[in-house]
């Protein structure tokens, strides 16, 4: 998994790109990373998942945890460029109703 982030002060938004696989092994690293960004500058988060090839329930748990923190200051998390197969996982778990999702190619 590779995570790259950039902050846009005009929109108060972190743009975070996720690359590779997020699973039970590396999900704690992603959790630390997202929480540090939120502490550094509380803003909205846009997760670009164009190169995300896999996410398991522990990865979803990390996103839920980050959303809880962001909601504390009325921020939001938007997930963009999801591959259809990964969007299916969000739908199965009902998380498509919690996060704003944008599917790849739409």
């Amino acid at each position, binding site marked *: 998994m590779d995570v790259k982030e950039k902050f846009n002060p005009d929109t108060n938004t972190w743009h975070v790109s996720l690359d590779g696989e997020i699973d039970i092994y590396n999900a704690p690293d992603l959790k630390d990373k997202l929480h540090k960004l939120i502490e550094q500058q509380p803003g909205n988060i846009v997760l670009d998942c164009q190169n995300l090839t896999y996410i398991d*329930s522990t990865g979803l748990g990390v996103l839920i945890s980050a959303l809880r923190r962001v909601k504390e200051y009325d921020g939001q998390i938007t997930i963009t460029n999801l591959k259809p197969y990964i969007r299916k996982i969000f739908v199965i778990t009902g998380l498509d109703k919690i996060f704003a999702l944008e599917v790849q190619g739409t």
Partner: protein
Amino acid sequence: MSNDTITLTVPAKPEYVMVTRLTSAAFASRLGFDVDQIEDIKMSVAEAIILILNQAVRPEELLIKFKHLDQCIHIDITGQGEWIETNISSQDIDHAQLSRYILGSMMDEVEFKTDNGIMREICMHKGCGGSS
């Protein structure tokens, strides 16, 4: 290939879940499942393991049996060896419901075997899309 079985034993540690995903994908591909079904099977194996690992106690190792029977893939995942205490957060335990949703949706049938509230074994199967 009917009745062919693959048995895999891995340490019950997060770093080995990828090994089980790759093995399940390779076996499902050999049985003729299509790409989406292979993804479902791969993910289900990982989620079953997460359910066994993310508890107040976890086993030393995992025994995973893949079997091809009656145009289905049957997968049994069993925790074995000594069960040791974990320091997992209650939040992670709460997320177990996500794993159950995924398993219930992606496999045809899933059976959870618990003992004193501890998930010891998960058995599941999915119908095959091919006959190779």
